[in-house]
């Protein structure tokens, strides 16, 4: 199973529909300070079931919804979907006969999140299990947020042991 495409609408500073293709090899993301690069990383973590607002730099989960600018009004809905390429047919059981699997998360201000996999509504738990079976997910150590490297260096040895637990 591969990650093929990320689509965002109304998520943080990406108010307009935005599509990011994830192809084999190395894909670079560049741009000035404050333009939205880390917001893209957070969109990927969020659609995979991140349920702690603090690890998306917010106070509450509604902080991921476009909050408006000096010239545009705030939105009430944010949506991110992730297209998985399952040509290698190694997805977890319920979805394995599909060539592509689309995972979608939608949040409405004040009303919480809805998850959909292949068009059907599912629980957050189901999405987390889908990614855990594929050795990834919202808390994967392969999603290295900005500042994470300095946090590992500054951590006490007992805190660093948590990295090992992921490998166990």
């Amino acid at each position, binding site marked *: 199973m591969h990650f093929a495409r990320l689509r965002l609408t109304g998520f943080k500073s990406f108010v307009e529909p935005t599509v990011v293709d994830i192809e084999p090899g190395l894909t670079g993301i560049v741009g000035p300070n404050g333009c939205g690069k880390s917001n893209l990383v957070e969109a990927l973590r969020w659609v995979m079931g991140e349920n702690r607002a603090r690890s998306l730099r917010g106070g509450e989960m509604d902080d991921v919804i476009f909050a408006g600018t000096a010239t545009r009004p705030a939105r009430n809905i944010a949506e991110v979907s992730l297209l998985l390429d399952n040509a290698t047919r190694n997805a977890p059981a319920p979805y394995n006969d599909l060539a592509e699997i689309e995972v979608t998360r939608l949040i409405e201000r004040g009303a919480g999140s809805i998850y959909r996999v292949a068009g059907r509504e599912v629980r957050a738990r189901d999405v987390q299990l889908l990614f855990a079976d594929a050795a990834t997910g919202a808390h994967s150590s392969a999603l290295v947020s900005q500042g994470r490297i300095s946090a590992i260096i500054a951590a006490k040895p007992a805190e660093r042991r948590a*990295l090992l637990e992921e490998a166990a």
Partner: protein
Amino acid sequence: GRERLVAAFDKVNTHFQELFVRLFGGGRAHLTLAPVDPADPAEGAPKEVDPLEAGLEVMASPPGKKLQSLSLLSGGEQALTALALLFAVFLTNPAPVCVLDEVDAPLDDANVDRFCTLLDDIGASTGTRFVVVTHHRLTMARMDRLFGVTMSERGISQLVAVDLRNAERLRATA
């Protein structure tokens, strides 16, 4: 739980030692599980280390330097050592995607070069797709494709596909 942790430690340690040499172009390093509060010398025999309570210590010596703990290395050497540790954990169970957000910020050009070579090698052997956020010109030049994010309308992010020459110009504008 204890046997699993010890087995994981051995696997991660083996990967870590090899990755450190690839990232530094030499030297040596290893991990140890140390008791969290070091044994009181007065008690005599060293404490039996219980892995479930232990701390992960990192000992490293860049090429030509003495073996020392992570805190005595330079800023860039620490970052490179932490990357070797992260990739060591990653290789025990490779994920389909790996996202790195400005992890190359403290690195000099020679280390950036070895870092990018390692990404190429891991991608070729595990099939993992990498998404790399960076401000480093050298890293940009090593990518297979580049996306630029701009805020031509203040506060609104927009994604554009760029080639390397445009990426240089994008760096330069706010």
